[in-house]
């Protein structure tokens, strides 16, 4: 886990943890107190939440029939949308943070970064962690505020189920974000791809309407994205009062996704580096 470089004749420790912390710090310094953060973590989720809530107003029912793995549950629209927006906003913050290599390329510091002996995966991880922390306070605050103000109908029967749903959803989304970021190194349009992904991902993952209401081919594609599985697990444990054993299959799927996407990210970064050395065009626009 430890890498060393020599600086002025001294050995300098560049452990993975230090790289992660440094990247987190950089992310915090660059983005925390900016309008950019306010937009992504406050205005957009709130605006989208209102928009999708308004989309349900023209219909007779205020309940959503939510189906998963052959089971069905009736859920209040507000809670359904609130959970959807909160997890989606977290996904978006990861996705946007994942375009870090694109930004480095724009700033002309990409080659420097690759010349340093810092672990590439740690750089990405630090960045996405930074984005997550920027966002987490909002997620917790909003959840409490809306739960008490709008009578969202939180029904928790098993705190372990809620905690594990949250934790594994976050980690799986983090791993997915890493893969997307690693994928975007191969292209010169990382930021563009990240932003263009928003709506298709939201649709197939059941952020706004449950998967049982969209065409099944699209819904099945959505199950490859941790957002879809995480949303089902969270909605069931937070709004449906599901117990741990009820959502074990979903949690297991999230766990598998974490492993698969981290390994994928690792290989994609290696592939990009190999190509960069071969072609020498990585820093070019």
């Amino acid at each position: 886990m430890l890498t060393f470089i020599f600086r002025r004749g001294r050995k300098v420790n560049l452990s993975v943890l230090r790289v992660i912390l440094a990247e987190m710090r950089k992310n915090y310094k660059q983005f925390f107190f900016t309008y950019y953060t306010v937009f992504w973590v406050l205005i957009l989720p709130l605006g989208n939440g209102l928009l999708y809530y308004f989309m349900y107003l023209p219909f007779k029912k205020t309940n959503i029939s939510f189906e998963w793995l052959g089971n069905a549950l009736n859920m209040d629209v507000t809670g359904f949308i609130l959970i959807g927006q909160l997890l989606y906003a977290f996904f978006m913050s990861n996705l946007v943070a994942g375009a870090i290599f694109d930004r480095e390329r724009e700033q002309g510091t990409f080659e420097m970064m690759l010349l340093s002996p810092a672990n590439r995966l740690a750089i990405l991880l630090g960045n996405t962690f930074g984005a997550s922390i920027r966002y987490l306070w909002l997620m917790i605050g909003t959840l409490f505020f809306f739960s008490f103000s709008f009578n969202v109908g939180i029904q928790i029967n098993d705190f372990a189920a809620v905690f594990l749903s949250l934790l594994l959803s976050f980690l799986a989304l983090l791993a997915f974000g890493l893969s997307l970021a690693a994928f975007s190194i191969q292209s010169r349009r990382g930021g563009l791809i990240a932003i263009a992904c928003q709506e298709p991902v939201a649709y197939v993952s059941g952020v706004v309407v449950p998967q049982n209401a969209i065409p099944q081919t699209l819904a099945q594609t959505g199950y490859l994205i941790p957002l879809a599985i995480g949303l089902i697990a969270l909605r069931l444990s937070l709004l449906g009062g599901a117990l741990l054993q009820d959502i074990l299959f979903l949690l297991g799927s999230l766990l598998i996704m974490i492993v698969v996407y981290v390994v994928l990210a690792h290989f994609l970064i290696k592939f990009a580096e190999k190509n960069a050395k071969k072609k020498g065009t990585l820093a070019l626009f």
Partner: protein
Amino acid sequence: MRHFLRVMKSTAKASLISQWRFFRWGGMGLRLFPPLLNLGVAWALYNNMFKGATSTDFVVATNSSDYFSFVLVGSIFYVYIVSSLFGLGRAMFWERAQGTIEALFLSPMNHVAYMLGIAAAAFITSTVDVLLLFFLGNVLGFRVQHIDAILLISGVLLMIFALFGLGLIVNAITLTFRDRVNTANTLMTVLLVFSGIVCPIAMMPGWAQIIGKTVPFTYGLDILRASLIYKSEFANVLSNIAGIMALASLYVVIGVILLERIKKNSRKKAQLTVL
């Protein structure tokens, strides 16, 4: 006048050439995905989830129970909002980024004509997107109930007039505050939520209705829908036309004043090219 029109025409031509010569699928996706998501959600809710069971309030507010067509018209208009905010609203920001803004301000042309040219190009490109959406909407079940051509054309023109005013204001903000996306993104979210694109204004909570009534597009959308989907009373159409004309004129006046202020400030502070 001839000079004004020539500036407008040549700016529109140059802008169109650069838009289509460097065509990017990603860029098109950025423009089309948000309205497509709205359409996809509306389609799933209306056809699959609630099986066409819209509430009585909705039928009363729109004289129709067809929610999908209601959202389609709104989404089409949304394409024009995006092009106004991100195309026209950042026209001078990109001139600065490309290092050509000083030349732009040094040239003896009329800058309102220049902005009109940019707007014309942006709206022409958007019309291509709108046609695509119309085609897709028809496949998914959009049905024009009746066409009131005069109302449709006047509605579209009034909307474009209002969007031009909004674009001028956003252009001033992005240029002055060196802001690339935040202003445009925020305004886009506000307009999408409160203009009645996905839900009739009358069905929204009171506070949301107040915000909606200060936005000219709320009136414009009602005119467009009255020309395509549902029949509206003459008095209602007239009040909508008066509402959009008053607010759009206000936006354009504010926009032109801000444009003049930018020119004045650029001479005074000499910071126009500083990023």
